[in-house]
């Protein structure tokens, strides 16, 4: 297939996944900010940090607060880091390769885009924000559903899935990195009420609160949460789970094309490092260092896929 087609497919799903991640992120911010004794501003500053748009935000706004951050990331379409921009980019990448999409996928992308304007509008009125974020998540889920249930399992599909997984791994790693630092108390005061709300909000952001209880059955423990989101292959948003998928699709692509590229080696190396990593090692090395390293390697993997297939 055309390299550009593969590139558009890859970015289409990346942007869709990013829109969903941003929606989850804002939802958590919103949840935390209405908690009793919420220290105003910190949740929202970390939200900006995770979304990677602190500087862009500071250029436009004086204060960090619910309204401004929600507007900047959730509503505005002139901010390249926002949900509307991501949905727009997903659609325009999809539109460029309509031929390679199934009707269900295209209609999903296109109706999202058509509805976006009115949805944004009702979200601006304030109370509608949670409905709006739900809608964004629904649309993303619906798109993935349309993709997995209608697309042929060929190279086009592999590129779509790889875009999604690469983006998802990046988001989970960022979320964990930033939130862990904000949330981890100076004193070993784990288990307080506020704490509980915060950790559970973080789990919600990756729809893993039920999964946690299912896997660990007990109070929320920061290190278990980190272990779960990094090393448990059963959790669909964990780093390991994303790498399992990435490796699988790169393998299948290599089989199909009859040629193994550098990106496959990189994915396997990263996969192996996660799969055979004892949780204690992660903590001993320092979670922040571990995650920073992961984010860098994940980015390098993305660039290598780009070089090997998409350019």
């Amino acid at each position, binding site marked *: *297939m*055309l*390299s*550009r*087609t*593969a590139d558009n497919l890859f970015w289409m799903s990346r942007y869709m996944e990013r829109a969903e991640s941003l929606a989850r992120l804002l939802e958590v911010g919103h949840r935390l900010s209405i908690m009793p004794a919420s220290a105003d501003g910190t949740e929202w500053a970390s939200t900006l940090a995770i979304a990677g748009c602190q500087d862009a935000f500071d250029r436009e706004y004086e204060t960090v607060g619910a309204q401004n951050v929600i507007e900047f990331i959730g509503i505005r379409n002139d901010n390249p880091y926002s949900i509307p921009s991501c949905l727009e980019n997903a659609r*325009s990448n999809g*539109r*460029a*390769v*309509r*031929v390679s999409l199934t*009707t269900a996928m*295209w*209609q999903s992308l*296109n*109706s999202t885009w*058509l509805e976006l304007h009115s949805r944004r509008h009702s979200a601006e009125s304030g109370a509608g924000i949670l409905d709006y974020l739900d809608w964004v998540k629904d649309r993303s889920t619906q798109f993935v559903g349309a993709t997995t249930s209608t697309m042929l399992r060929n*190279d086009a599909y592999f*590129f779509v899935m790889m875009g999604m997984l690469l983006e998802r791994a990046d988001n989970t790693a960022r979320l964990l990195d930033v939130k862990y630092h904000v949330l981890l108390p100076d004193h070993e005061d784990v288990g307080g009420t506020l704490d509980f709300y915060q950790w559970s909000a973080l789990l919600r952001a990756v729809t893993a609160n039920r999964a946690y209880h299912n896997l660990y059955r007990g109070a929320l423990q920061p290190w278990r949460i980190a272990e779960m989101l990094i090393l448990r292959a059963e959790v669909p948003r964990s780093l390991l789970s994303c790498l399992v998928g990435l490796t699988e699709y790169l393998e299948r692509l290599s089989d199909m*094309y009859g*040629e193994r590229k550098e990106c496959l080696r990189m994915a396997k190396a990263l996969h192996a490092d996660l799969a055979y990593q004892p949780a204690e090692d992660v903590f001993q090395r320092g979670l922040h260092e571990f995650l920073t390293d992961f984010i860098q390697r994940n980015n390098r993997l993305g660039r290598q896929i780009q070089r090997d*297939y*998409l*350019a």
Partner: protein
Amino acid sequence: MTKEPFNEMRDGGGAVRDLYRGVQDWLDQTPADVMALKREETELLYRKSGITFAVYGEGGGTERIIPFDVIPRLISAREWELMARGLDQRVKALNMFLCDVYGEQRALDEGIIDPSLVLLNDAYEPQMQGLQVPGGVYTHVAGIDLVRVGPDEFYVLEDNVRTPSGVSYMLENREMVMRLFPDLFRSYAVRPVDHYPEELLSTLVSVAPPAAQGDVTTIVLTPGRYNSAYYEHSFLADEMGVDLVEGQDLFVADNIVYMRTTQGPKRVDVIYRRIDDPYIDPLAFNPRSALGVPGIMTAYRAGNIVLANAVGAGIADDKSVYTYVPDLIRFYLSEEPILNNVPTYRCSEPDDLAYTLDNLKDLVVKEVHGSGGYGMLVGPAATKDEIATYAERLRADPDRFIAQPTLALSTVPTFVESGVAPRHVDLRPFILVGSETKIVPGGLTRVALEEGSLVVNSSQGGGTKDTWVLNE
């Protein structure tokens, strides 16, 4: 020409013609609210599937749908047979003319057409001189715009032999009507159109360059997603099962054109290109074009690829050459034209210019090189000021214009605010030329939605209809 327009549905006494009786019954039997619902459904379906076109001059990213009228336009077997013969003849002559212009230039030598009109024309492409294209085919896909003024009176309004668009609407409109009104569709024996993409592909493959090895690799080359006809480009590529590429996806090495794929470079043989000549190769034409492929003209001249339609084909649909087409038919085929031209005044000639200036309020004036209804004057619909402004443009550069009487275009029943009313239409059938000529029975019927309006162009508020060519 002030006679009453020909009404395709009703005769002079207002009685419904036999052909349209089924449509009339259907209109009588379908309650107004059902019809209204169906029409809303149409708009929704078109939007949902993203069948949109961009309108130039309205700022970037403007996407509109072309209004679709649900009442089909009917053409009897006998009428179609006449049209098809005329189209076949005309396109044959146009191809022979192109072959001649870029070859021996007999028509020019023998004074059939003024050489300066051809050779000094912007649409004439010197780089094509002496190049033999496979099968002698220059216009592989032609869209000939026809208007009807009487029972068996059809005129050719203009020829489109460069990159005619609109065929996707012919196909989508059919899908839509079959889906919305299966009963009406069943009540007529309508000839199918949905094999058009297959016919297009086999036409393209039939003129592959001799250098093509093994399976012929055919692609559609588009300027990209911001082009007004992008939907059509992707639709056709999809239906033919070929790659839709942009200039950046192609490169030329050793006079061979390759596309960049996830498995490395792949050789390309036939390019159905929807990029205009000036943009196709920055090395040969407009150096600032980012849409084209550097070096593609040398590969073309080396015979390693076929471009459809050929570069330089535009000389045959230039509006100043149009007036000579009947003579060209007589010259090349020794036949009388089956389809006539609309009488046309060449403003480059003093007498015609004087007549045109005196009668602007009754004439349609067009730019010779324009297309899509941009920059034209419809005298009867224009204000005094508009006419005065246009007259100045005309005097300043008369060679750029031609004028035609405002034809009484035929009307067909159309849904409008006030109910069903007659509206003016034209018809663009698509003619495919490869090792043989094929015409899918149908075409794009364009309808002027405003009462009395004669401008059917989609960029000027025109709509479309499904066109049913019937079996005996």
